[in-house]
Structure formats: structure tokens, C-alpha cells
């Protein structure tokens, strides 16, 4: 690093700017902020003492990011946007370049300086807006805020007086990228930083500040509530900003020696899972440290749900939500990876979500610890999307968008995870991200139904190809003077063989025209005398009316006899006809083992009935789900 050395204008001691590009240095002797203005140094006065933060870093720590020169922490900037102080560390590389390492809630973001494309001025930036950052891609604005430059340590690459208000816009980009547009104290963008979340291991940082060097916001362990004296157990002292007393409900400021922000003397709502309860979800053991009751108002009625804040020191914070007995485990979602938020859909992690509900949610009760400055009555705009068993949720304030993704958990699983007593309350209704319990089975049933339907159709085609052999055909004339149904008109066919048992199709064909022929018949097995009686009526009528030519009937008609055993048969046929219109004759054809379509159709109906009922139940389930949404299928 190319350094610069001069005398402090306040105390005269030596100040060393280790980076050639550093413009501000806090004098180690007198604590004054010394600005480099060309060859001249100016003192901006003493900076405030460092605010206690739980940072594990300290100036002088060295590291190496893969593919980059080694670095050293040369500066520390403390900022506050009104709800908490966070640290930004200046990394000075061996090649005199620099980058920022932002630290918040135990997470680190490596942010390198990038070319700043033309972007809107600060006042026109809104959460949710898309910003094209050139080679880095299109980012979405997640936070538009103004932070106070509280204090600093070491050196900084800009020349700003401590105490100044700095405008910035945080953005989330594709593939886990983050960006910050620095507006400085004005309205025009001054710098762009692009980076991603990193771990200290990735940065090659082995050395961290000792426990004595780390100053916690509040002392961990057992302390007493300053309002009611009740015992408070602080489980995440590094991260906690607010503590809500579980005994009196008072809201305390963890960043200011548990000063009372809101004094109450009432017992808050008792959570189902007590604070301090531990449970293993995924690969981590989570501790319940906070509990909130939130609600939305719809047509004058408030609908509430419970949220539990979970904490694990290495992974940070997660949520458990309980809505009418339905539970979900909620994790942060990277806003830059949420795509296509339009037309009621959103895409995240290769999954398409459908818009479910938009509402304004309110915090009604809080108990325990929280990593942000929570307060009763806090309002956020919530937009929920669902793709069971997941939901994707965006919570918006005028200056910030926060995305999260929840996954449905069975109540019994929650009880088992946190070793809760008794049985979980039975959930009511259908949760937005609840999976219909038969969904997997239903898919199997639908697939099987298709397979069985295919089998039936294939079988019917095979039967058509193989079955239906003609065993007898014979024509008869009706004696001219015979009376209908008389002995003279009655005939018997020649004997014929039916080789195999099965059904028999008998078809009568007669040249009827605006008349009919009725056959009273019997299929008689000659040796046993067993017979099947049947009748066939052939009729055909035609004419003309105002609609044109009409016809009715046909010159042929068939009938079927079931389960006819093999044997030698004759047909007895006794014809009758319309007196004035004697048909000349008729033809009889007998076929054996003829495939019946209606039977295949009934089989199709039978195998289709079950999946139809399954689909109906699934439909009813989805109806119940969406009846609670902004897209209800029925209006009540």
C-alpha cells in the first residue's frame, strides 16, 4: 500500500494514511477526524466514541479473498439509520485498492467499487424498482434510507464530516448479488458498490476480536425487567435491539441499557412455544427468542396469526408462523432472485408462485427479543404468493422491501421438534401453502387411470380385430297369403354350429319402407331343447315436412343374446307386419362372440369414477384454500 504521512492539525501527532486513496483519517492520538484536501490537512473535530456493536472484527486484521491480493482492515465506519448501528469495514488491499465489508446481524457482505451507470436521483428511488447496473445485471431496490455517519476509526476513502446524513440505496441482484448506490450527502449518485454475502472463512480471516474486545448491546443471561422486576433472559445479546418483557409486556431498548420504551402492566399473549425452547429444523438447532401476534383487517374484522422468532448464532434468524393451527418455517429470500413479479405471479428458485393476498399487517403483541426496533402497532404491507408447500412473502415499508420464503410444517412435526406437551390443536380451514394430503397419491391415481383407460381401449381394439365370427346367414320370403304371426309365416333356419360359448348377435334386415317388420324369435339348441327368446323390430319411415326430408329407423336391427353355450342351433322366426304393407322377405345373420362397446365404455366409466372423485375432492380443497385469498373462486 502506498501510504501518506503528515501531522495531525489538532494535536500535531503523526497520522498515517496507509491507502493512497484515503481521504479521512481518525487520529489515533486525539481522536480528531483529519481530512486530506490536496496537500493540506483539515481537522473536522473529534469523532464520537465507537458505539458498542457485537462485531468480531477489529482494525489490523488481515485476510485474502480468493483471486485477490491480501488485505488488511484499515478503517471502520459506523452508521445508524434510526433503528440500529452497523459497522462497515474498509479493506485496504496490497495493491492500494480498497473495498467495503458491511457487517450486520452477524452477516458480512463484501462490496467492491464498480462503474456507476446513470441512475435516478435519490428522491426518485423506491423499493421494488428495477435498476440496470450494467455488467452486474438488473437489480431490484430493497432499501432506500438515510443513515447518520455516527463515528469512525482508522481511515476512510471519502471526505465527509462525522454526523453527516448519508443517503444510500441497497439493491438485490441475480445469483445472490447485492449492491449499494452511495448518494453521499446529496441527491445524485456518487458511487456504486457491488458484491455478495461472504463468510469470514471465505475472506481468509482467521483472527477475530476477543470476547473482551467485543462489546455487546446488552448483557446476556438473566437480568430483571426495569418495569416489573420480572426475570428476563437475553438469548441473543449480540443482535437484540428490542426486548418485550414476558411478564408485564413492557417494551425495552436493548441498545440503551434496557430503557423503557413502552411501559405496560398487562400480561401479554402466551405463546404455544415458550421462549427459550430449542428445536432442530434442518441442520440447525433453533432457539425461540421472540413471539409476535400480528393481524390484518378485512371488512372490519381482524384476522390474527402468531410468529415466533428463531435464532441460531451461526445462521442468524428464522421464523415460525402459526395461522389457525397451520405452521410454516420461514427463511429470508434473496430479493434479487425473485423474478417476474407481475400478472399475479412471482418466480423464485426455479419455482412459480401465484399471488394469494395483499394486505396491511399490524403488530399487535410482542414478547421476547427482536433484532430490529419492533413496536406494537408497526404496520407493513404484505404481499403473499403461494406454491404449496411454499409461500413467498414480501413485506414493505415506504423505505424497505423484505422477501421471505416459508415452508409448510405439520403441527405434529412442530410438537415433536420442540418437544411440546399434549397434542397440537387441530388446524382449521386450509392454509395458503398447505399441500393437499392426497396430492401425491392423487397423481398416482391419475396416472394409473390413464394407464387402465389405455388398456381398456387397447383391449377393445384387440377384441374387434379378433372377435365376431358369422355362423349363419339365411334369407326368407313371406308367403303372399300368409297372415302376420301365422303358422304359414313362421319359419325355422337351417341348423348351424356355434363353436364356442359367448354372446350371439342376431341381425334382421328387411326392405321396409314406411312400414315395419316384427320378428318373434327363439334360438334353440337342438339336442337339449334349451332356447333363448328374443324379438326384433325393423322399421323405416321417411317423409318431408317444412324442415325438408326426414327419416326414422333403418332397414336393419340387431339384438344380442348373452352367454350362449356351444352347440347345434336353429332359429325359430315368426314374423308380423303391417297388414297393408307386406314386406317381400327378410334376411337373418347370426354372429358369435361379438365385442360389445358398451361394456368397454362401462369399464372406462368405472375406472374413471375414482379419479374423478379424487379430482373433485382436490378441487374442493383448492376452493377452500383460495376462498381466503384475494382471488376467491366463489363469492359468499
Amino acid at each position, binding site marked *: 500500500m502506498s501510504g501518506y504521512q503528515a501531522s495531525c492539525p489538532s494535536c500535531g501527532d503523526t497520522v498515517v494514511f496507509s491507502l493512497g486513496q484515503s481521504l479521512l483519517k481518525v487520529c489515533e492520538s486525539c481522536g480528531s477526524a483529519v481530512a486530506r484536501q490536496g496537500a493540506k490537512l483539515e481537522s473536522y473535530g473529534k469523532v464520537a466514541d465507537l458505539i458498542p456493536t457485537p462485531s468480531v472484527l477489529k482494525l489490523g486484521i488481515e485476510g485474502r479473498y480468493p483471486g485477490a491480493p491480501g488485505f488488511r482492515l484499515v478503517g471502520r465506519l459506523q452508521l445508524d439509520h434510526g433503528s440500529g448501528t452497523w459497522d462497515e469495514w474498509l479493506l485496504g488491499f496490497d495493491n492500494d485498492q480498497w473495498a467495503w465489508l458491511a457487517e450486520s446481524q452477524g452477516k458480512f457482505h463484501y462490496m467492491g467499487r464498480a462503474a456507476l451507470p446513470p441512475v435516478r436521483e435519490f428522491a426518485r428511488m423506491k423499493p421494488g424498482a428495477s435498476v440496470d447496473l450494467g455488467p452486474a445485471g438488473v437489480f431490484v431496490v430493497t432499501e432506500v434510507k438515510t443513515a447518520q455517519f455516527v463515528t469512525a476509526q482508522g481511515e476512510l476513502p471519502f471526505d465527509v464530516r462525522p454526523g453527516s446524513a448519508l443517503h444510500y440505496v441497497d439493491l438485490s441482484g441475480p445469483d445472490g448479488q447485492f449492491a449499494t448506490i452511495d448518494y453521499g450527502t446529496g441527491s445524485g449518485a456518487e458511487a456504486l458498490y457491488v458484491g455478495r454475502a461472504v463468510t469470514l472463512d471465505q475472506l481468509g480471516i482467521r483472527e477475530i476480536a476477543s470476547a473482551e474486545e467485543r462489546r455487546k448491546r446488552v448483557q446476556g443471561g438473566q437480568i430483571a425487567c426495569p418495569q416489573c422486576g420480572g426475570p428476563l433472559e437475553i438469548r441473543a445479546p449480540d443482535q437484540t435491539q428490542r426486548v418485550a418483557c414476558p411478564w408485564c409486556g413492557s417494551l425495552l431498548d436493548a441498545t440503551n441499557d434496557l430503557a423503557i420504551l413502552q411501559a405496560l402492566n398487562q400480561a401479554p399473549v402466551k405463546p404455544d412455544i415458550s421462549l427459550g425452547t430449542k428445536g432442530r429444523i434442518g441442520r440447525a438447532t433453533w432457539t425461540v427468542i421472540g413471539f409476535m401476534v400480528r393481524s390484518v383487517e378485512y371488512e372490519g374484522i381482524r384476522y390474527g396469526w402468531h410468529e415466533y422468532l428463531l435464532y441460531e448464532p451461526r445462521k442468524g434468524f428464522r421464523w415460525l408462523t402459526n395461522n389457525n393451527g397451520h405452521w410454516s418455517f420461514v427463511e429470508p429470500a434473496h430479493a434479487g432472485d425473485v423474478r417476474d413479479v407481475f400478472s399475479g405471479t412471482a418466480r423464485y428458485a426455479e419455482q412459480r408462485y401465484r399471488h394469494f393476498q395483499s394486505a396491511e399487517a399490524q403488530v399487535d403483541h410482542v414478547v421476547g427479543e427482536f433484532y430490529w426496533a419492533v413496536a406494537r402497532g408497526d404496520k407493513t404491507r404484505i404481499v403473499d404468493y403461494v406454491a404449496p408447500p411454499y409461500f413467498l412473502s414480501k413485506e414493505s415499508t415506504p423505505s424497505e422491501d423484505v422477501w421471505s420464503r416459508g415452508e409448510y410444517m405439520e403441527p405434529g412435526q412442530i410438537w415433536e421438534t420442540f418437544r411440546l406437551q399434549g397434542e397440537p390443536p387441530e388446524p382449521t380451514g386450509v392454509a395458503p401453502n398447505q399441500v393437499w394430503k*392426497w396430492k401425491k*397419491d*392423487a397423481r*398416482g*391415481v391419475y396416472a*394409473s*387411470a390413464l394407464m*387402465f383407460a389405455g*388398456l*381398456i381401449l387397447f*383391449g377393445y381394439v384387440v*377384441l374387434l380385430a379378433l*372377435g365376431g365370427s358369422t355362423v349363419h346367414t339365411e334369407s326368407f320370403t313371406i308367403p303372399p297369403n300368409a297372415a302376420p304371426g301365422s*303358422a304359414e309365416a*313362421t319359419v*325355422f333356419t337351417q341348423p348351424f354350429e356355434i363353436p364356442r*360359448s*359367448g*354372446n*350371439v348377435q342376431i341381425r334382421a334386415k328387411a326392405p321396409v319402407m314406411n312400414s315395419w317388420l316384427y320378428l318373434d324369435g*327363439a334360438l*334353440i339348441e337342438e339336442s*337339449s*331343447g*334349451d*332356447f*333363448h*327368446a*328374443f324379438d326384433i323390430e325393423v322399421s323405416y319411415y321417411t317423409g318431408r315436412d317444412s324442415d325438408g326430408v326426414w327419416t326414422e329407423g333403418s332397414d336393419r336391427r340387431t339384438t*344380442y*343374446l*348373452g*352367454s*350362449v353355450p356351444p352347440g347345434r342351433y336353429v332359429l*325359430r322366426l*315368426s314374423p308380423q307386419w303391417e297388414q297393408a304393407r307386406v314386406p317381400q322377405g327378410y334376411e337373418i345373420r347370426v354372429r358369435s*362372440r361379438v*365385442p*360389445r362397446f*358398451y*361394456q*368397454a365404455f*362401462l*369399464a372406462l366409466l*368405472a*375406472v374413471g369414477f*375414482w*379419479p374423478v372423485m*379424487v379430482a373433485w375432492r382436490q378441487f374442493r380443497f383448492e376452493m377452500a384454500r383460495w376462498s381466503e385469498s384475494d382471488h376467491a373462486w366463489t363469492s359468499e
Partner: protein
Amino acid sequence: MKRAYTAFALSVLGLWGASSWLGWELFAAQRGKIPQSVRQAPGGYRSFAYWRGGK
């Protein structure tokens, strides 16, 4: 549920196969047996009188 459905559908297939093979019909025709005495009588089952109820 899938197993139950598979069993049910296989039963349906079996029933359909049996009905096709054995020639079952939904509505059975009237069946009867011509008595031995009629069959041995002159004209046998071909007698008109038998089919007209002896008239």
C-alpha cells in the same frame, strides 16, 4: 389410495374381461327349455302350437 385404486381398477378390468370372454349381457333374454314330451312329439319343437301356448 393408489394401491386401493389399482386393486379396484384391476377388478374392473377382470370383470370386463370375463364379460367379454363369457358373453355376458346387461339384459338377459328370456330363457326356457322345451319339454322332452314336446321334443319327442310329431313336429317336435317345430310345432306351431307349442310356441303359441298350445292353442
